[in-house]
């Protein structure tokens, strides 16, 4: 049975046997026949042709109207056959594209990889998960050995390949900035000019840039239209939205960014994120901001990396393990 031959003789025998016995066995073999035909990319019109020829051989006296009706059926199936062949070739192409994208995704991962600094003064937790193969979110850490920790969190509009390409450009621009300590407002100002010059008019990037000084425990920051993060006050066990004005990167070349500064007390946390976190949906319902904070709070006794992991797991489950948007969450906590 496994060596079913895909030829006229075989089909004719099967058909003849079925007409004679109405046996399930013959029907099962017909099923095998059709599966094998698909494996060999035989289109439906060809099977109908085999059927017509078999009929002619089994019933040489077949009435003319049946013959005509079969020809009519054959004619109507030609286009289906073409559509089937096209479908097959598109499927192959899709596989090709998929593997190309996964190569690109791996390259991007290497390109955008960042090392989370291990510091005594501040403990960091960071997680970024793409909704599709390529990530449109970006985060980056720079530590200058003099106690300055720079943190960038960015989100490119849209997802997938275009967003990833844009992100790679941003990463390269940031790498070309001088290695010395730079002010968040200056960094955003220069990036804005890069994006404005080089990116399609409907594309834009939001970015939050923060600089943590672990000598005096101050946090300086600027935002380019980025989803507001949160500041957690250990003393009162309360969250405060870090809501700072600032236009998204790439809209207007002469945008200036304001820089803010605050002191960070022991045990306080800075929470930075992208809209993949705040725009979570449960079915058709949006998650409210308070729910996000409640979840973070419920894990706040854990080390920062565990907090971000647990929060991600929570929202992943809430969305039936299907992310709609890239998800990036960073938690900083002053330890000493």
């Amino acid at each position: 049975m496994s060596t079913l031959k895909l030829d006229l003789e075989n089909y004719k025998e099967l058909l003849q046997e079925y007409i004679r016995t109405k046996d399930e066995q013959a029907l099962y073999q017909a099923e095998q026949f059709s599966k094998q035909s698909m494996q060999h990319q035989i289109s439906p019109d060809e099977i109908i042709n085999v059927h017509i020829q078999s009929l002619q051989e089994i019933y040489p006296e077949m009435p003319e109207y049946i013959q005509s009706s079969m020809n009519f059926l054959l004619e109507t199936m030609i286009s289906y056959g073409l559509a089937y062949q096209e479908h097959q070739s598109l499927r192959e192409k899709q596989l090709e594209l998929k593997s190309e994208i996964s190569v690109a995704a791996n390259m991007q991962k290497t390109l955008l990889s960042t090392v989370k600094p291990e510091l005594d003064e501040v403990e960091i937790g960071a997680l970024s998960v793409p909704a599709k193969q390529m990530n449109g979110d970006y985060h980056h850490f720079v530590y200058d050995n003099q106690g300055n920790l720079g943190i960038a969190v960015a989100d490119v509009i849209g997802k997938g390949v275009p967003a990833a390409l844009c992100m790679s450009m941003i990463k390269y621009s940031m790498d070309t900035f001088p290695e010395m300590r730079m002010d968040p407002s200056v960094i955003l100002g220069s990036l804005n000019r890069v994006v404005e010059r080089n990116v399609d008019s409907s594309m834009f990037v939001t970015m939050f840039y923060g600089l943590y000084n672990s000598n005096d425990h101050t946090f300086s920051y600027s935002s380019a239209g980025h989803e507001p993060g949160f500041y957690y006050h250990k003393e009162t066990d309360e969250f405060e939205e870090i809501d700072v004005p600032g236009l998204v990167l790439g809209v207007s070349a002469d945008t200036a960014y304001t820089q803010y500064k605050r002191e960070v007390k022991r045990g306080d946390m800075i929470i930075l994120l992208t809209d993949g976190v705040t725009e979570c949906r449960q079915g058709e319902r949006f998650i409210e901001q308070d729910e996000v904070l409640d979840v973070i709070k419920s894990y706040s006794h854990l080390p920062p990396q565990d907090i971000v992991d647990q929060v991600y797991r929570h929202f992943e489950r809430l969305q039936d393990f299907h992310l709609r948007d890239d998800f990036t969450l960073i938690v900083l906590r002053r330890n000493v």
Partner: protein
Amino acid sequence: MNLTIDVSHKEDVAYLTLVGEVDAFTAPKLKDTILPLTKEEGQVVEVDFEQVNYMDSTGLGVFISALKSTKEHNSEMKLIHMQDRVYRLFKITGLTEIMNIDSTVQGGM
């Protein structure tokens, strides 16, 4: 999840009424409708958001490129009747500062 776009003209003003969601799937259609309008000098494009309950960043991108186009072609764009959730997006991204947005009906803060 769908978006219907209704366009009507009165003198120099083109009124766009949006109903539904503006996301990655519907944004291209919106862009194709709104961009040509902003390319006519002196044209005022008024977009009614009253029945838009969701918009994502792709939608925002459409309005950013429309805004750039109005500056280039000397036309004007006005966004009206925005719901809170959608208004928040324009607020966070700093666009409320540079766009003409009137959110009186739904009380967009």
